[in-house]
Protein backbone atom coordinates (compact mmCIF):
# COMPACT_ATOMS: atom_id res chain seq x y z
CA UNK A 1 0.00 0.00 0.00
CA UNK A 2 1.40 3.34 -1.00
CA UNK A 3 0.62 6.83 0.28
CA UNK A 4 -1.83 7.57 -2.53
CA UNK A 5 -3.93 4.52 -1.65
CA UNK A 6 -3.92 5.16 2.10
CA UNK A 7 -4.85 8.80 1.50
CA UNK A 8 -7.83 7.76 -0.68
CA UNK A 9 -8.98 5.38 2.06
CA UNK A 10 -8.81 8.19 4.64
CA UNK A 11 -10.88 10.45 2.37
CA UNK A 12 -13.50 7.72 1.86
CA UNK A 13 -13.69 7.09 5.59
CA UNK A 14 -14.14 10.79 6.47
CA UNK A 15 -16.73 11.03 3.69
CA UNK A 16 -18.58 8.06 5.18
CA UNK A 17 -18.60 9.61 8.67
CA UNK A 18 -19.91 12.85 7.17
CA UNK A 19 -22.76 11.07 5.41
CA UNK A 20 -23.69 9.20 8.61
CA UNK A 21 -23.47 12.24 10.90
CA UNK A 22 -25.35 14.56 8.54
CA UNK A 23 -28.34 12.26 8.07
CA UNK A 24 -27.68 11.88 4.31
CA UNK A 25 -27.29 8.10 4.76
CA UNK A 26 -30.84 7.89 6.11
CA UNK A 27 -33.31 7.76 3.17
CA UNK A 28 -36.25 8.84 5.31
CA UNK A 29 -34.34 12.02 6.27
CA UNK A 30 -33.47 12.67 2.61
CA UNK A 31 -37.11 12.24 1.55
CA UNK A 32 -38.14 14.67 4.31
CA UNK A 33 -35.82 17.21 2.67
CA UNK A 34 -37.13 16.48 -0.84
CA UNK A 35 -40.75 16.83 0.36
CA UNK A 36 -40.95 20.59 -0.23
CA UNK A 37 -44.75 20.58 -0.22
CA UNK A 38 -45.26 18.36 2.81
CA UNK A 39 -43.74 18.62 6.29
CA UNK A 40 -40.40 19.93 5.02
CA UNK A 41 -37.15 19.18 6.88
CA UNK A 42 -34.60 21.77 5.62
CA UNK A 43 -31.61 20.14 7.42
CA UNK A 44 -29.88 18.79 4.32
CA UNK A 45 -29.49 22.25 2.81
CA UNK A 46 -26.99 22.79 5.63
CA UNK A 47 -25.04 19.67 4.59
CA UNK A 48 -24.43 21.19 1.17
CA UNK A 49 -23.64 24.56 2.76
CA UNK A 50 -21.10 23.08 5.20
CA UNK A 51 -19.46 20.96 2.50
CA UNK A 52 -19.07 23.86 0.06
CA UNK A 53 -17.78 26.22 2.78
CA UNK A 54 -14.82 23.83 3.23
CA UNK A 55 -14.60 22.74 -0.41
CA UNK A 56 -14.47 26.23 -1.94
CA UNK A 57 -11.05 27.32 -0.58
CA UNK A 58 -9.63 23.82 -1.22
CA UNK A 59 -10.66 23.85 -4.89
CA UNK A 60 -9.39 27.43 -5.31
CA UNK A 61 -5.97 26.18 -4.17
CA UNK A 62 -6.26 23.02 -6.29
CA UNK A 63 -6.99 25.03 -9.45
CA UNK A 64 -3.69 26.93 -9.01
CA UNK A 65 -1.58 23.77 -8.66
CA UNK A 66 -0.32 21.39 -11.33
CA UNK A 67 0.43 18.58 -8.87
CA UNK A 68 -1.28 17.34 -5.75
CA UNK A 69 0.61 17.16 -2.44
CA UNK A 70 1.43 13.45 -2.88
CA UNK A 71 2.91 14.21 -6.32
CA UNK A 72 0.18 12.96 -8.66
CA UNK A 73 -0.98 15.34 -11.40
CA UNK A 74 -4.08 17.41 -10.57
CA UNK A 75 -7.12 15.87 -12.27
CA UNK A 76 -9.77 18.57 -12.66
CA UNK A 77 -12.65 18.00 -15.13
CA UNK A 78 -12.15 19.80 -18.44
CA UNK A 79 -15.65 19.18 -19.85
CA UNK A 80 -17.67 22.42 -19.90
CA UNK A 81 -20.54 21.35 -22.15
CA UNK A 82 -24.12 21.84 -20.99
CA UNK A 83 -25.65 19.17 -23.19
CA UNK A 84 -28.55 16.74 -23.30
CA UNK A 85 -26.49 13.99 -21.69
CA UNK A 86 -25.81 16.13 -18.63
CA UNK A 87 -29.39 17.33 -18.21
CA UNK A 88 -31.28 14.12 -19.00
CA UNK A 89 -28.82 12.06 -16.96
CA UNK A 90 -29.20 14.40 -13.99
CA UNK A 91 -32.99 14.32 -14.34
CA UNK A 92 -33.04 10.49 -14.33
CA UNK A 93 -30.73 10.50 -11.32
CA UNK A 94 -32.99 12.99 -9.51
CA UNK A 95 -36.07 10.84 -10.14
CA UNK A 96 -34.28 7.77 -8.76
CA UNK A 97 -33.06 9.78 -5.76
CA UNK A 98 -36.63 10.93 -5.08
CA UNK A 99 -38.03 7.40 -5.39
CA UNK A 100 -35.83 5.75 -2.75
CA UNK A 101 -34.03 8.60 -0.95
CA UNK A 102 -30.64 7.15 -1.87
CA UNK A 103 -27.91 8.76 -3.94
CA UNK A 104 -24.67 6.81 -4.66
CA UNK A 105 -22.55 7.63 -1.55
CA UNK A 106 -25.29 7.07 1.05
CA UNK A 107 -26.37 3.86 -0.72
CA UNK A 108 -22.82 2.49 -0.39
CA UNK A 109 -22.47 3.64 3.23
CA UNK A 110 -25.83 2.09 4.20
CA UNK A 111 -24.83 -1.16 2.50
CA UNK A 112 -21.63 -1.02 4.58
CA UNK A 113 -24.03 -1.02 7.54
CA UNK A 114 -25.49 -4.23 6.00
CA UNK A 115 -28.95 -2.78 5.42
CA UNK A 116 -30.67 -5.23 3.03
CA UNK A 117 -32.58 -2.47 1.20
CA UNK A 118 -29.33 -0.58 0.60
CA UNK A 119 -27.65 -3.71 -0.78
CA UNK A 120 -30.54 -4.13 -3.25
CA UNK A 121 -30.25 -0.45 -4.25
CA UNK A 122 -26.47 -0.66 -4.77
CA UNK A 123 -26.72 -3.87 -6.84
CA UNK A 124 -29.31 -2.17 -9.07
CA UNK A 125 -27.14 0.97 -9.28
CA UNK A 126 -24.08 -1.07 -10.33
CA UNK A 127 -26.26 -2.85 -12.92
CA UNK A 128 -27.38 0.55 -14.24
CA UNK A 129 -23.73 1.63 -14.55
CA UNK A 130 -22.93 -1.59 -16.45
CA UNK A 131 -25.89 -0.94 -18.78
CA UNK A 132 -24.44 2.53 -19.44
CA UNK A 133 -21.05 0.99 -20.19
CA UNK A 134 -22.57 -1.43 -22.71
CA UNK A 135 -24.55 1.35 -24.41
CA UNK A 136 -21.39 3.47 -24.64
CA UNK A 137 -19.39 0.61 -26.19
CA UNK A 138 -22.07 0.05 -28.80
CA UNK A 139 -22.02 3.69 -29.94
CA UNK A 140 -18.24 3.65 -30.37
Amino acid at each position, binding site marked *: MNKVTISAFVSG*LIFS*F*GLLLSGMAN*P*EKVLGFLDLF*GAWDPSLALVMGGAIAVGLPAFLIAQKRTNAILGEPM*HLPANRKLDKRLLLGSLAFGVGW*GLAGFCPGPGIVASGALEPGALVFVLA*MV*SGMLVFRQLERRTR
Partner: protein
Amino acid sequence: MNIDWNAFTPLTALAGGVLIGLASAWLILMNGRIAGISGILGGLLNNERGNRGWQLAFMLGLLAGPAIWALFHALPSIEINASYPVLIAAGLLVGIGTRYAAGCTSGHGVCGLSRLSPRSLAATLTFMFGGFATVYVVRHLLGA
Protein backbone atom coordinates in the same frame (compact mmCIF):
# COMPACT_ATOMS: atom_id res chain seq x y z
CA MET B 1 -44.36 25.74 2.86
CA ASN B 2 -44.63 23.96 6.15
CA ILE B 3 -41.35 23.40 8.04
CA ASP B 4 -41.06 20.28 10.16
CA TRP B 5 -39.14 21.78 13.12
CA ASN B 6 -39.19 18.47 15.03
CA ALA B 7 -37.14 16.76 12.32
CA PHE B 8 -34.77 19.74 11.84
CA THR B 9 -31.19 18.85 12.88
CA PRO B 10 -29.07 21.86 11.89
CA LEU B 11 -25.97 21.08 13.97
CA THR B 12 -25.39 17.49 12.87
CA ALA B 13 -26.29 18.43 9.28
CA LEU B 14 -23.74 21.26 9.27
CA ALA B 15 -21.05 19.20 11.04
CA GLY B 16 -21.62 16.26 8.67
CA GLY B 17 -21.43 18.65 5.72
CA VAL B 18 -18.11 20.03 7.01
CA LEU B 19 -16.75 16.43 7.19
CA ILE B 20 -17.92 15.78 3.60
CA GLY B 21 -16.22 19.03 2.54
CA LEU B 22 -13.04 17.99 4.38
CA ALA B 23 -13.03 14.57 2.69
CA SER B 24 -13.41 16.24 -0.73
CA ALA B 25 -10.75 18.83 0.08
CA TRP B 26 -8.41 16.05 1.25
CA LEU B 27 -8.83 13.99 -1.94
CA ILE B 28 -8.30 16.89 -4.34
CA LEU B 29 -5.33 18.40 -2.45
CA MET B 30 -3.54 15.16 -1.48
CA ASN B 31 -4.42 12.95 -4.47
CA GLY B 32 -5.51 15.45 -7.12
CA ARG B 33 -8.82 13.61 -7.54
CA ILE B 34 -12.49 14.59 -7.46
CA ALA B 35 -14.44 12.85 -4.66
CA GLY B 36 -17.31 11.98 -7.00
CA ILE B 37 -18.75 8.71 -5.85
CA SER B 38 -20.56 7.71 -9.04
CA GLY B 39 -17.42 8.55 -11.02
CA ILE B 40 -15.15 6.51 -8.74
CA LEU B 41 -17.51 3.52 -8.79
CA GLY B 42 -17.96 3.82 -12.56
CA GLY B 43 -14.18 3.95 -12.94
CA LEU B 44 -13.81 0.75 -10.91
CA LEU B 45 -16.39 -0.99 -13.12
CA ASN B 46 -14.40 0.09 -16.17
CA ASN B 47 -11.31 -1.48 -14.60
CA GLU B 48 -9.12 1.53 -15.39
CA ARG B 49 -5.45 0.63 -15.13
CA GLY B 50 -3.50 2.83 -12.74
CA ASN B 51 -6.68 4.04 -11.03
CA ARG B 52 -7.86 0.81 -9.44
CA GLY B 53 -5.80 1.20 -6.25
CA TRP B 54 -7.02 4.58 -5.09
CA GLN B 55 -10.58 4.00 -6.34
CA LEU B 56 -10.87 0.72 -4.44
CA ALA B 57 -9.32 2.26 -1.30
CA PHE B 58 -11.80 5.16 -1.36
CA MET B 59 -14.73 2.73 -1.75
CA LEU B 60 -13.42 0.57 1.11
CA GLY B 61 -13.24 3.70 3.28
CA LEU B 62 -16.90 4.47 2.50
CA LEU B 63 -17.95 0.88 3.23
CA ALA B 64 -15.87 0.60 6.42
CA GLY B 65 -17.29 3.84 7.84
CA PRO B 66 -20.31 2.33 9.61
CA ALA B 67 -18.29 -0.51 11.21
CA ILE B 68 -15.60 1.86 12.49
CA TRP B 69 -18.25 4.36 13.68
CA ALA B 70 -20.04 1.54 15.55
CA LEU B 71 -16.86 0.80 17.55
CA PHE B 72 -17.24 4.17 19.28
CA HIS B 73 -20.87 5.16 19.04
CA ALA B 74 -24.29 3.74 18.18
CA LEU B 75 -24.98 4.09 14.45
CA PRO B 76 -27.58 6.72 13.52
CA SER B 77 -30.83 5.25 12.27
CA ILE B 78 -31.08 4.29 8.60
CA GLU B 79 -34.77 4.03 7.72
CA ILE B 80 -35.53 2.49 4.34
CA ASN B 81 -39.25 2.39 3.64
CA ALA B 82 -39.17 1.81 -0.12
CA SER B 83 -40.11 -1.68 -1.37
CA TYR B 84 -37.55 -3.82 -3.21
CA PRO B 85 -39.08 -3.14 -6.67
CA VAL B 86 -38.90 0.62 -5.99
CA LEU B 87 -35.31 0.30 -4.70
CA ILE B 88 -34.38 -1.61 -7.87
CA ALA B 89 -36.01 0.98 -10.16
CA ALA B 90 -34.36 3.78 -8.17
CA GLY B 91 -30.95 2.08 -8.31
CA LEU B 92 -31.15 1.60 -12.09
CA LEU B 93 -32.14 5.25 -12.64
CA VAL B 94 -29.39 6.48 -10.31
CA GLY B 95 -26.78 4.21 -11.92
CA ILE B 96 -27.56 5.10 -15.54
CA GLY B 97 -28.37 8.76 -14.80
CA THR B 98 -25.23 9.56 -12.84
CA ARG B 99 -22.99 7.98 -15.50
CA TYR B 100 -24.66 9.95 -18.31
CA ALA B 101 -24.41 13.13 -16.26
CA ALA B 102 -20.82 12.26 -15.23
CA GLY B 103 -21.56 12.96 -11.59
CA CYS B 104 -23.94 12.90 -8.67
CA THR B 105 -24.53 14.74 -5.39
CA SER B 106 -20.83 14.47 -4.47
CA GLY B 107 -19.09 15.08 -7.81
CA HIS B 108 -21.38 17.82 -9.15
CA GLY B 109 -23.11 18.95 -5.94
CA VAL B 110 -20.12 19.21 -3.59
CA CYS B 111 -16.93 19.26 -5.71
CA GLY B 112 -18.42 20.93 -8.80
CA LEU B 113 -20.16 23.73 -6.92
CA SER B 114 -16.98 24.21 -4.83
CA ARG B 115 -15.02 24.91 -7.99
CA LEU B 116 -17.82 27.15 -9.30
CA SER B 117 -18.46 25.01 -12.40
CA PRO B 118 -21.53 26.16 -14.40
CA ARG B 119 -21.94 22.60 -15.72
CA SER B 120 -22.15 21.23 -12.18
CA LEU B 121 -24.58 23.97 -11.18
CA ALA B 122 -26.86 22.95 -14.09
CA ALA B 123 -26.57 19.28 -13.08
CA THR B 124 -27.28 20.03 -9.41
CA LEU B 125 -30.33 22.18 -10.17
CA THR B 126 -31.64 19.46 -12.51
CA PHE B 127 -31.29 16.53 -10.09
CA MET B 128 -32.66 18.60 -7.21
CA PHE B 129 -35.67 19.44 -9.39
CA GLY B 130 -36.04 15.72 -10.27
CA GLY B 131 -35.96 14.78 -6.58
CA PHE B 132 -38.45 17.44 -5.46
CA ALA B 133 -40.82 16.66 -8.35
CA THR B 134 -40.70 12.91 -7.77
CA VAL B 135 -41.45 13.19 -4.04
CA TYR B 136 -44.26 15.62 -4.85
CA VAL B 137 -45.81 13.19 -7.33
CA VAL B 138 -45.33 10.11 -5.13
CA ARG B 139 -46.47 11.63 -1.83
CA HIS B 140 -49.00 14.26 -2.84
CA LEU B 141 -50.46 13.21 -6.19
CA LEU B 142 -50.36 9.43 -5.80
CA GLY B 143 -50.59 9.59 -2.01
CA ALA B 144 -48.20 6.68 -1.55
